[in-house]
């Protein structure tokens, strides 16, 4: 029982990270109907920017952990958001009215480009980070097994929740949210009633990128090592999460992320750790076969 609870905690933490990335996928898919293949690289860039931020703060002598986290969080979100914006402006906006495959190819090209860009600039070696947040508390003793909730896991869960609340507010209550939802329903119609479609799409990428960068920061804190290749697998799994939750649905993305995180944690704990990626992909295939719209997605009606 204790072991089970421990895996539950680990899985939820992992799921939060996937969920944050998945939101970027699902928003972009919802609004322009393309898989933003380079989104995983944005997450990776977020992780690298946070690592540089932590090192800079270390050199500057800032040691108070909450201040460090807050500064790095804000700086990473801001700088990575620019990457999201530039990505859309350079690679996707010129192709908005082109065949869908064209945008997918530029997305894959961008993904390869960004990976190698970071590899060239920062080197191919794995980059470690000293633990920034340490300690935790044991909240349940089950025989000789205690369930640990580290402060880091607590921070990840709390920050994700806070971001989710803010994000939900943004989408449901603000003018941008209204424009975003309108564009999701019908780009042309939204443009006709005066929504600035270009701005809305650009801002969607900015938000997706900043959420992914937070996920990158958490990944860095959680695992302590990053390299230029982490974006690929994390991106694929987050996309799986988005599809599992129902692509285009924002709560679905979070739910899907949580489920993927839990599946991965439990699979690693009770079965074989080597095949944990296979488990995640198999879930994707099963979901698409039996419930192609995902858990919370709306059925896609094909009009003739």
């Amino acid at each position, binding site marked *: 029982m204790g072991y089970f609870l421990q895996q539950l905690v680990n899985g939820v933490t992992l799921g939060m990270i996937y969920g944050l990335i998945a939101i970027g996928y699902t928003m972009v898919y919802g609004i322009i109907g*393309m*898989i933003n293949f380079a989104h995983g690289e944005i997450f990776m*860039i977020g992780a*690298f*920017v946070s*690592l*540089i*931020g932590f*090192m*800079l703060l270390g050199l500057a002598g800032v040691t108070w952990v909450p201040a460090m986290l807050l500064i790095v969080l804000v700086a990473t979100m801001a*700088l990575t958001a*620019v990457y999201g*914006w*530039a990505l859309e402006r*350079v*690679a996707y906006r*010129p*192709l908005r009215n*082109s*065949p*869908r*495959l*064209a945008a*997918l*190819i*530029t997305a*894959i*090209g*961008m*993904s*390869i*480009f*960004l*990976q*190698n860009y*970071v590899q*060239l*600039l*920062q*080197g191919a*070696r794995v*980059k*470690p980070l*000293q633990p920034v947040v340490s300690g935790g508390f044991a909240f349940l003793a089950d025989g000789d097994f205690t369930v640990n909730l580290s402060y880091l896991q607590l921070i990840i869960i709390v920050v994700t929740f806070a971001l989710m609340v803010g994000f939900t507010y943004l989408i449901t209550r603000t003018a941008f949210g209204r424009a975003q939802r309108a564009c999701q329903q019908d780009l042309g119609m939204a443009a006709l009633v005066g929504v600035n479609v270009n701005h809305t799409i650009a801002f969607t990428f900015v938000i997706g990128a900043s959420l992914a960068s937070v996920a990158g920061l958490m990944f860095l804190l959680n695992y302590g090592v990053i390299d230029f290749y982490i974006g690929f697998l994390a991106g*694929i799994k987050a996309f799986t999460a988005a*599809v599992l939750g129902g692509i285009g649905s924002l709560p679905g993305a979070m739910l899907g992320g949580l489920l993927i995180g839990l599946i991965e944690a439990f699979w690693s704990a009770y079965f*074989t750790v*080597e*095949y944990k*990626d*296979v488990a995640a*992909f*198999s879930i*994707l*295939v099963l979901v*698409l076969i039996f419930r*192609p719209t995902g858990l919370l997605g709306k059925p*896609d009606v*094909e009009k*003739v």
Partner: protein
Amino acid sequence: MTATVQTPGRAATPPPRPLDRRRLLVDAALTALVVLALSFALVGFKIEDVPGGLDLLLRFDDVVVAAALAFLVRLGVDLLGAGRPLPVLATSLALAGALAGLLVAEQGQTEPGALTRWLPFGAVVVDWLVVMIALGFAARAAADLWRRRATVAPVATEASTIAATLRVATRVLGPLLLGVAVTLPFLPEVDRRILDIAILVVTYVMLGWGLNIVVGLAGLLDLGYVAFYAVGAYSYALLAQSFGFGFWTCLPFAGIMAGFAGILLGFPVLRLRGDYLAIVTLGFGEIVRVVLLNWYQFTGGPDGISGIPRPTFFGLELTRTASGGGETFHGFFGLTYSPTDRIIYLYYIVLALALLTNAFTMRIRKLPIGRAWEALREDEIACRSLGINPRNTKLTAFSIGAMFGGFGGAFFATRQGFISPESFTFIESAIILAIVVLGGMGSQIGVVFAAVLLIGLPEIFRDLQQYRMLAFGGAMVVIMLWRPRGLLARRRPTIHLPPEGAGR
């Protein structure tokens, strides 16, 4: 049909408009600001490994230079757009000339690095890239100037002119290319290195043609093609290792196994729509790789399989001395032994396989099943109402494409003599798909061009190893932005009703 392709669209040269200097500068400054933000963290600081941890290295000169260049580029683009090519031409020529002069002088210096601080970037390749971009601007500006002088404004845009020329040339070019390909090993100046590159290019051409059946004809987006490539390679390697079969015995098996894998994977997923199908096939590709990596007893895991037999020529070995009582090729024909013989033989094998793929595709296009694929690509609902079974039709395309992938895999295994899961990563699928899409989906000759462009060129510039994939990704983006339908886009159905040009 008229002989020249004329596309209505943007006029050749935008007429000069009154210049809004302030807006121009603001635009350029904003671009520079964005580049500054982009490069601030990742370019400005380099994480260095030092004993006992990491250290940060500052590179802010590069950040500033990048921002300044972005300013100039944006200014240039805006000026060209406003119909002012003259200042762009002057500035870019001056810049390119000065930079190129510096670079050449730098190479001539006995003491390396004496002129480095005058160059914009530390890396010479990046400096040359800057020169190229400046030259590109100069060429564009010159073209604009020339067009303004010309009394007759040409209507066709340059991109479509190129495509039209190529398309007309295709009729001549196809046989010509074939001739070059067949005689390549015997042309002068062709050494082993060029043959190796040629083998690689033709392998990708073959894989591209195989995937073209799935993507170009049937319109199914397959991001996991490498899985079938892997199945073919491992089928041959394992059959050869366990039963001692030769290449020619295993080749059909490898294809059949890959085809079956295609049916197996395709059956559950082919009812999904475009993007979903892409992601699921990607997932399958990764699953196959992970299984190959972890099923140690069967596949050797990360160690791979080595000692895969080379192909024989009707039982004659292409080695110096025959193993186990066989006879050698040069011994049988009374020739002197040359190690290139084997390479030439491999080249002809893959060429034959590629041509087989091409011939098969060209023929099957005209069969009912090929027509059904193309119809399905255009409109699935219409097909359904006409009584075409979409699932079975897609499944045939998927498994036939997979079969050719399997042939390619078997060839890969016999060429390398060693395979491991390392060779079958997602990036391979992406490269093959990029070749198909960049070539123009459904265009057979486009695949050849794209393969030469994407595989051949980077191989020739092998010295720039570290920039290879960066340039590859960048090229994918740039080509797609330039021609969103591919280099040689031709997505016309092969049958028309009524015939084209009737009633004109």
